[in-house]
């Protein structure tokens, strides 16, 4: 038998498409399967899922209503004065979206990544690392949106919504969730152990407190206000506040762009890092 009479496929030396080598498993077929997986998992952990949106709601009751009674009204940049709880609710709405997005992309991700080896199992199927990243981020966006929706319903029930533009809050919640899910997932791929997650908390607490969530930007010293203006949650808070209070203008495209870029950059970093970590 000679080399020539063998069938072609005996040695199907596949030439790499000129200049472009697809890494071993970047994009596969089904990021949707990852959403299904999380859905199945939370079916048995429903309490964990359902209680996830309570925190901002409780803050609304305590700080918004309780402390709000001591504060009275808040004068907005636009000039008119609103009750304190009307001011604070959009901020906490943005927090609800952020929380929903962060839970499964940081700590939840790490547990599965490090201890469950869940992603190793996924990657031995046709799924690729980009599927994993896209799937987890999409799931997180859904979770953030569910929490935001629940919070929005509460806001309407308490009469804290002033404008029909508030329906726009939902897509904004998804933007916020996208930004934080992408960034959270990217950050988590750099964590070495659970102890490192303290640094994520350390970043989230000031974002929560100082994104003009509880008091308007005018109350910050000049330099601090400048810093707050470039932080991520502030983008979400100011967007939400604008639509809930019916104060729309073209300038809002800036925070929208900010959040889209943040999520996308995070997602790309996460996919690349996952490839390095899971497919060495």
């Amino acid at each position, binding site marked *: 038998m000679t080399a020539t009479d063998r069938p072609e496929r005996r040695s199907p030396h596949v030439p790499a498409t000129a200049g472009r080598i697809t890494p071993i498993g970047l994009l596969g077929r089904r990021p949707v399967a990852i959403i299904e997986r999380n859905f199945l998992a939370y079916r048995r*952990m429903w*309490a*964990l899922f359902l*209680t*996830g949106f*309570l*925190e901002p709601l*409780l*803050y609304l*009751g*305590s*700080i918004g209503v*309780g*402390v*709000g*009674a*001591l*504060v*009275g*009204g*808040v*004068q907005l940049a636009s000039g008119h*004065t609103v*009750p*304190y709880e009307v001011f604070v609710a959009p901020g906490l709405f943005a927090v609800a979206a952020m929380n929903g997005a962060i839970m499964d992309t940081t700590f939840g991700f790490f547990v599965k990544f490090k201890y469950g080896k869940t992603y190793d199992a996924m990657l031995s199927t046709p799924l690729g690392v980009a599927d994993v990243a896209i799937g987890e981020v999409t799931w997180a966006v859904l979770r953030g949106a569910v929490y935001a929706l629940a919070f929005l319903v509460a806001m309407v029930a308490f009469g804290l919504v002033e404008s029909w533009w508030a329906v726009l809050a939902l897509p904004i919640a998804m933007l916020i969730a996208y930004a934080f899910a992408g960034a959270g997932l990217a950050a988590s791929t750099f964590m070495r152990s659970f*102890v*490192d997650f*303290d*640094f994520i*908390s*350390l970043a989230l*607490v*000031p974002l929560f*407190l*100082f994104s003009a969530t*509880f*008091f308007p930007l005018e*109350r*910050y010293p000049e330099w601090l206000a400048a810093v707050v203006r470039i932080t991520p949650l502030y983008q979400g808070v100011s967007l939400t506040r604008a639509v809930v209070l019916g104060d729309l203008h073209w300038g809002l495209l800036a925070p929208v762009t900010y959040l889209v870029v943040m999520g996308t950059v995070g997602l790309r970093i996460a996919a690349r890092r996952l490839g390095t970590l899971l497919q060495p």
Partner: protein
Amino acid sequence: MTATRSGVLRVVEREAQIFKSLWRGPVILSFITPVMFLAGMGVGLGGMVDDGTGGSGAGASDLGGLDYLSFVTPGLLVASAMQVAAGESLWPVMAGKKWMRTYHAMVATPLDARHVFGGLIVWSGVRAAMSGAAFLLVAAILGGVPSPWAPLALLASVGCAMAVSSLVATFAVGQESDQSFAVLMRIGIIPLFLFSGTFFPVEQLPDAVEPFAAVSPLWHAAELARGATTGHIEALEVLLHSLALVGFFVVGWWWGTRRFTRELQT
């Protein structure tokens, strides 16, 4: 009794050892978090309260003549003690019982389940005292601590931590996974944190809800701490609130020793 006490010390020693090796994260968090709340709520939001921009609020008069920063400082002090204690009594307990089984290693020595439980509680108190002292110092610099009696507030803080720790660890050791822990934080610890007279006086709660403050260890501790940092509290109040904290602790201890023993030594 001496045996028990030295056994508890052994366990505390171990916790301190671990803490020393990874102190950065926990220390930063348990100190910085309340300080950030103090800056955000006490100074930032407090500025709005004190300005009393009108509305239904009558500002300072509702706070017993205190400015908001002085009102919220003792609340945050004991609330962070509660948070630290809850954190120390949930996941580490699951690690000891199940993930790393260190508790089982401990009870295989002359230590028994009561030492493990007691050590955990004492350690929560130590943590609360450490981060509380640092917090009080910062609050004093910011002007949130009018009275020289303020250091006594640390006693309330430690009492709160130990009472909470005894109850929460009792819950935790009976669980088979950590799934319920986040739920407990969300439906237990956070509501206590927000509605126990920490951020606004409980008198503002709806009348039907207000009496429930009495079952919050945090409220008793907050009242005691506020008495110390402001210097205004009746002797009788001190007695009753202290008794309440001791009561929570006794219940936790009685129940917890049984549960720890059942989980670790049967």
